[in-house]
């Protein structure tokens, strides 16, 4: 039985989230991904399969190797995907305001 996969199910698992983070920075082979975890290789393969089935990952054949890519387009189906980016800038700008107010009062 193969349950219908969706992105929410995919990111509900911490190992799968870690795999996504790894691949957000670079594309990797299944072996290279598995090397980052203590978990058994078949378990990691299963996680990669689930992520691929719901299109969060793309496969690309390069010679004998299959490389996995992160697919940000699919990530966008998660409504809040842009919020951490906005929050990162908001936090940064709040800090800028605090730093410059302090600088002004010292003058």
């Amino acid at each position, binding site marked *: 039985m193969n349950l219908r996969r969706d992105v929410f199910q995919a990111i509900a698992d911490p190992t799968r989230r870690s795999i996504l983070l790894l691949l957000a920075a*670079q594309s990797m082979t299944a072996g290279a991904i598995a090397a980052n975890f203590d978990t058994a290789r078949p378990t990691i393969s299963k996680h990669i399969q689930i992520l691929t089935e719901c299109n969060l990952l793309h496969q690309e054949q390069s010679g004998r190797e299959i490389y996995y890519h992160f697919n940000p387009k699919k990530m966008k189906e998660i409504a*809040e995907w842009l919020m951490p*980016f906005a*929050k990162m800038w908001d936090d*940064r*700008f*709040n800090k800028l305001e605090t730093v*410059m107010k302090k600088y002004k009062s010292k003058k």
Partner: protein
Amino acid sequence: MAQKTKIDAEDGKQEVQIEREFDLSVELLFKAYIVPVLLEQWMGTKVLKLESKKHGSYRFETIDNNGNVVFNANGVIHELIPNHKIIRTFEMENAPFGVQLEILKFEKLTDHTSKLNIHSIYESVALRDQLLALPFAQGINMAHNRLQDVLSNLK
């Protein structure tokens, strides 16, 4: 507290607009971008080099708590008009994100308030989406690490 920063990232485009109003004069806001010791404080990065002038260049280095270099970034300043505009490139070193062009517009609203608009243009739609999604990927991973910390403390 509501976020004061507006992000405009239209689907299928390779650009982003970031806009924010500040309770600071435009002079102070601009200074935050051109004085190394000030920029270091709010960006949380070390400034290795910052030549705040036309055709100048800059290089940042971010170090974690253990003294390891997390990332380096650099770029060239194409245009710098005090209290009005900075046009520069930005590139993370040893990262597959390409280079981005940033157009920063500083605008005076009143004597004590100002507005900043950052227009970033990426090499492709895919690279833009990847960079925008990065804090999301990091965020869910950090939440997961915090959860792990809590659980391991319970043991």
